[in-house]
């Protein structure tokens, strides 16, 4: 198989793996935050801020996968 095709397949696999993991964990985090807000509505402000920061941290992994996929497609060092 050509190096180009392998890169394209690898990019697709990277993005799909980077979509599944963060999606599951973000769903988990938001669900827990909803639980906490339902239990203590007066703490919604600090909870929302912490949730946003945590979601940003989780989402970074997905963004890393996206950047790796784009590097494979557009700036692949092995394809001249």
């Amino acid at each position: 198989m050509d190096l180009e095709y392998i890169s394209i397949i690898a990019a697709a696999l990277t993005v799909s793996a980077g979509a599944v993991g963060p999606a599951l964990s973000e769903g988990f985090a938001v669900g827990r935050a909803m639980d906490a807000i339902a239990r203590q509505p007066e703490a919604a402000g600090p909870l929302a801020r912490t949730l946003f920061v945590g979601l940003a941290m989780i989402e970074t992994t997905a963004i890393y996968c996206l950047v790796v996929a784009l590097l494979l497609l557009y700036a692949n060092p092995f394809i001249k």
Partner: protein
Amino acid sequence: MESPFVTHLAFSLGPVPISFAVVITWGIMLVLTFVAWLSCRDLKLFPGRWQTVIELLVTNIDAQIGEIFQHKKPHFLPLIGTLFIFIAVANMVDLLPGLSAPTAILETPAALAIIIFFSVHFVGIRSQGLWAYLKSYARPNIIMLPFSLLSQITRTFSMMVRLFGNIMSGQFLIGLLLAFAGLLLPIPLMALHLLISLIQAYIFAVLATVFIAAAMAADT
């Protein structure tokens, strides 16, 4: 489709090449400064509509910063507020025809992340003293030293990549849909991109504040 890692040069200033993203950044800076000057030129005790909007924005940012720092007295409104407003405007500037967001090119987020990197250390050394600040890297044990150093680098890198990746992927998606499906389909995604732009500006500002607050924290 064009690679998102390519920067286009607008012109050269002597030996220094100037890219389009930098020109757009300068434009945003000029416009923001001009708007700020215009709205602060004639402040009244009983504000009109525009002054109310500006006051609402400034007091809200100040309150958010105060919540993160809790009982310490921070004076980071100029840094964090400017950062938030600049990133929000820079993310959304691609809605204007002919312009593209400077944060969708890797250089601008890198510059912003480096500003935060240096201000964290500056604030840490100024509030704790040099030796105490350096010692805080080896707390609770000397084994933590390499991990602390590594985390300083990775979190700066991840701030950069997060902003770049989100904004660039939004633009990329809109461009792809525009190529495939014409006029109407990209519009809901552009609305989503607006939301993401604001959220990313908020997250960048909050993370910067959290890092600075963590560097300020004394031995507790």
